[in-house]
């Protein structure tokens, strides 16, 4: 039970940590100053949630690992995030579509998790819901602007959507860990989360005049630590200071 809870909490943490790291890459490079601030704000929100979850995962594991140990001293294969969040930023449409696909999943997941039988997860989710609501609003508005904007912005948003769609299946993958957590009333019913996700996607894409891609091949493996070629570079950048100066603090 505690092994499954550890794995489940770590998955929640890894998704949001890697997305935060990706969004953080825009810091100082945003299309305009205001958007630069707005996006890095959201990256920091994600990081805050990741910290709470990592700290809790360390407590559940009971081996004395801290949030820093888990974030900075795990190898690529030990990361359990979905492949969606590690995909490169690309242009701004690609970054926003990636966030939108995730935010539309993250909000109903957090809302449902507030009713988790695990009090700590429920409390962390309760804290995240307000932020997640704003994140989804912000990324949705960009999807609508891009999709319903100029010919070029429409094309770029559709290209990003077509490119990233294959990574959405993994968000709702079932396995023994999730089954055990769902049975225990800790993880929510993911069919309901998927229905909410799907509804948001349809509504926003309709307003954005974008076309929802057909479900085809869906990428998998992230939950087992099998990542795309991008993951190593993300971790190298994220971990190199801790690796170079073990135990350093600032």
């Amino acid at each position, binding site marked *: 039970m505690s092994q499954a809870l550890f794995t489940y909490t770590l998955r929640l943490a890894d998704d949001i940590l890697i997305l935060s790291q990706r969004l953080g890459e825009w810091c100082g490079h945003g299309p*305009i*100053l*205001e*958007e630069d*601030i*707005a996006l890095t*704000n959201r990256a920091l929100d994600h990081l805050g949630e990741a910290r709470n979850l990592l700290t809790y995962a360390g407590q559940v594991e009971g081996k004395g690992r801290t949030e820093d140990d888990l974030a900075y001293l795990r190898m690529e294969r030990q990361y359990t995030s979905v492949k969606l969040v590690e995909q490169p930023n690309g242009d701004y449409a690609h970054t926003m579509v990636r966030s939108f696909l995730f935010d539309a999943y993250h909000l109903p997941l957090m809302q449902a998790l507030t009713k988790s039988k695990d009090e700590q997860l429920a409390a962390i989710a309760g804290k995240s819901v307000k932020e997640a609501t704003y994140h989804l*609003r*912000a990324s949705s*508005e960009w999807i609508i*602007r891009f999709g319903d904007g100029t010919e070029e912005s429409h094309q770029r948003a559709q290209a990003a959507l077509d490119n990233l769609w294959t990574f959405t299946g993994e968000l709702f993958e079932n396995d023994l860990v999730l089954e055990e957590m769902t049975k225990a009333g800790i993880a929510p019913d993911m069919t309901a989360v998927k229905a909410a996700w799907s509804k948001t996607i349809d509504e926003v894409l309709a307003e954005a005049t974008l076309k929802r891609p057909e479900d085809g091949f869906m990428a998998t493996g992230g939950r087992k630590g099998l990542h795309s070629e991008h993951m190593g570079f993300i971790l190298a950048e994220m971990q190199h200071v801790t690796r170079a100066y073990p135990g350093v603090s600032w």
Partner: protein
Amino acid sequence: MSSENPNNWPLWEIFIQSKRGLDHKHVGSLHAADADMAIENARDVYTRRQEGNSIWVVKSEHIHASRPEDAESFYDPADDKVYRHPTFYTMPEGAKYI
């Protein structure tokens, strides 16, 4: 604004109300494509540290200002008109809050 790059999004003036019941105060300006975006950007730029509970945005071009060179003719004539201040009333005995 003639010095603005024409490719930039328009400039908006941001007003934040820090507490219910207080005035909205001008806090600065930012660029945004439309009013919705201006409000969201204002949320991220000006309310990060719990400064506000309500936001107004106004396109900068809609604000008309008096000209600095008018200052003398506008404001100086008030200098010698003390009778415009309520300083010539005798305060009733015991009145504290006037």
